């Protein structure tokens, strides 16, 4: 390595300068990243419930906004939260199952048209199906005439719409992971008389749990964060998911309902943020391979 002397600064001085600059920048960046979260949390504790008067450290901090959030039947926040959790949990569990079955077939069987089928699925899923919302709307309306629990305005219908996208980039991600499980394992199980179902359940499934968890969590977060489909399919106040409900709560009333909204935003965000922070190493691997958060 060369000893590079820059002006009058020695190498050591330069290093210290860089370190100092880095710490200063770190402070700025962390402030930038966290300020909105801190600000909204502070607003949630400010009983004046006003956008205009809010200060970062609220005087007379209290849980009044949280109490109001749950007390007012016009905005059944607890209900919205439960709806969101219910819809997202069912969607992600079913999506993982559906996707894992397909990934197993793509990974373990050789059949004509395998490659084109996988590519077709990937390409079709590029179509954002909320753009075909009129078709989905009419379809759910008609399905609802025969199977009411899957109709318009129901959680079943919404889950059905989400599950249309169960196959897609997730199947691709999983297939890559399945491929890494040595086929010798299947072979030896097969010799012992296991069939495909048993191999899938008892051998592959336990080994691929990490990728299933990643896909499950990403699907959960994506569903939890969806606004468009939910806003069109769910119209009833009591069936709304959090995204639709919070938007309705705040729209046009920023100045009057800021504190209550902030309390809702805080409660709505905390579970997802915690999941992210706890499982970040897990999730990041999946994210950087091409799954995009919704």
């Amino acid at each position, binding site marked *: 390595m060369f000893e590079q002397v820059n002006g009058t600064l020695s190498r050591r001085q330069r290093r210290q300068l860089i370190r100092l600059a880095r710490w200063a920048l770190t402070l700025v960046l962390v402030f930038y990243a966290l300020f909105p979260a801190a600000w909204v949390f502070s607003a949630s504790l400010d009983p004046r419930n006003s956008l205009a008067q809010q200060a970062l450290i609220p005087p007379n901090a209290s849980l009044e906004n949280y109490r109001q959030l749950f007390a007012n039947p016009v905005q059944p926040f607890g209900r919205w939260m439960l709806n969101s959790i219910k819809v997202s949990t069912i969607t992600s569990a079913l999506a993982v199952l559906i996707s894992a079955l397909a990934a197993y077939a*793509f990974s373990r069987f050789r059949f004509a048209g395998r490659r084109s089928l996988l590519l077709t699925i990937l390409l079709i899923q590029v179509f954002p199906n909320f753009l075909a919302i009129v078709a989905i709307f009419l*379809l759910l309306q008609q399905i609802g005439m025969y199977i009411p629990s899957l109709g318009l305005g129901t959680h079943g219908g919404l889950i059905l719409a989400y599950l249309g996208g169960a196959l897609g980039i997730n199947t691709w991600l999983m297939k890559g992971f399945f491929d890494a499980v040595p086929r010798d394992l299947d072979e030896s199980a097969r010799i012992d008389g296991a069939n495909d179902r048993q191999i899938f359940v008892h051998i592959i499934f336990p080994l691929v749990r990490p990728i299933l968890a990643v896909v499950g969590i990403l699907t959960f977060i994506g569903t939890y964060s969806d606004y468009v489909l939910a806003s069109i399919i769910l119209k009833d106040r009591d069936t709304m998911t959090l995204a639709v409900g919070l938007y309705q709560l705040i729209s046009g009333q920023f100045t009057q309902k800021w504190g209550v909204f902030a309390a809702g935003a805080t409660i709505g965000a905390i579970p997802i943020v915690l999941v992210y922070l706890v499982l970040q190493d897990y999730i990041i691997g999946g994210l950087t391979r091409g799954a995009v958060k919704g």
Partner: protein
Amino acid sequence: MIRVGTGQGTQRLSTSLSLSEVLFRLLALALVDAVAIWLVIRMVADGVWLLVTLVTVITLGLNVIFLREEFYPLRWMSPGLALMILMVVYPLVFTVYTAFTNYSDGHLLTKPQAIKRITTGLQNMYVPEGGITYRWVAFQAEDGTLALWLTDPEGNHYFARPGEPLQPARAGEGIFGPPDEAGVPTAIEGYTRLNRIQAAANRELPSIQFGLPPNAVQVRTPTEAAVLRPRFVYDPERDAIVDQKEGKLYVADDSTGFFVSAEGETLTPGYIVTVGWRNFDRLLNSPAIRGPVIRVFVWTVVFAAASVVTTFALGLFIALLYNDPTVRGRKLIRSLLIVPYAIPAFISILVWRGMMNPQFGVLNRALDTWLGFSPPWFSDPMWARLGVILVNLWLGFPYMMLVCSGALQAIPDDIYEAAEIDGAGAWKKFRLITLPLLLVSVGPLLISSFAFNFNNFNVIYLFNQGNPPMRGTPTPVGHTDILVTYVYRLAFASGGGKDYGYAAAITIIIFLIVAAITLFNFRYTRMWEEVSEHV
């Protein structure tokens, strides 16, 4: 144990199945078929043909897949494929079809539905010239059937029941109780007299024909009943609707989806017809529409590109800042910096909207104090555009940071060492080594990010609904609208002006663009080859 299928070399479609598993499979399939048949029978009765087709196609597909051994692998994908066909492929096909129709406000029904709407219902009934109008009082029998007591302008009374000729009657005779001051019996044997409110509350009453058709009497207003004739009658031979009152003929025009008279008057509602390339033609050639669409398109590209460039620049900068393994607390800093990415976007967008409120938002108050200027994020087109890009930067930079720090670690150190020996400075090393190598590995993710932002509905809609509005456009459109939010406006615009056909045409264009980007990306990443080569 019986062996089904064959194990030829590495082709492993062979499955060993016990008899009970085969039976279970057949039973399950029979159950699915039974449910499907039950649904199809009911749907056929209702004439819901699209749904009939969908259910039939999916069920037949399942049967083929589960009965033919050569489709064994597809069994594993059947739930996913069925859902994809139902909720993605069918909507896609429907959208393509819609793009070639005039499906819009005023053309929401099929032709038979529109004919039915025009030629039936009470609003279609009229009192023919010389027809008699009666005053009426309703009576209800114990079994719920209704009857009317009618009084004509000359003071004659009739008792009218559905399906029987009008019966001249007088209060106080036979089953009819004594008259009130209007000559109406206060009671009729076997019947209860309904007062005005009870009669008005009865939904069936206006649709019941009292007496024998064609001279049956119908209730027209809360006080009046008359022998009514349908005003509009469909004539299948001429494919036209005849106005009995005015004597006019409205002929079906299947190129515009209207029944049109000789004078050019149209009947509402119109109906859905295919219009060929007209929606696309309008999109490309109508000056009033083309102008806004081009502006929306350009902004969509600018927004997506600016989002990728800004998030990538900031993300890369941060990744470089902490790339040095000697930096302490890297893990903690990373955890703190991914918080914007971890918060569900719909929440943080709304929070930013509050913080950027021009009068009260904390950001604007701060800018006002320091710079003496409060940017009009929601009312000025340029500031609004800058606003969404800034919000999207905050939402997206952590993703780029993660991607870049992964890619940076993959660049071998000896390249830098060699460059240093050649005397390259920090900037030169970055420009000539880091950036090109990085772009190769994260390039595909940048392209996906572009495609994602191209359709980033949430950030545009939740921040400002695409506003501020452009002036003088035929349908509402805003300065920050991207193509997807523009489509959403067209399909769900409040206050009329919904144009599904036109929205579908734009949807197809969006799909083609995004599909092209994705295909390019597949090529670029060699996903194509990977699919065929990998195990």
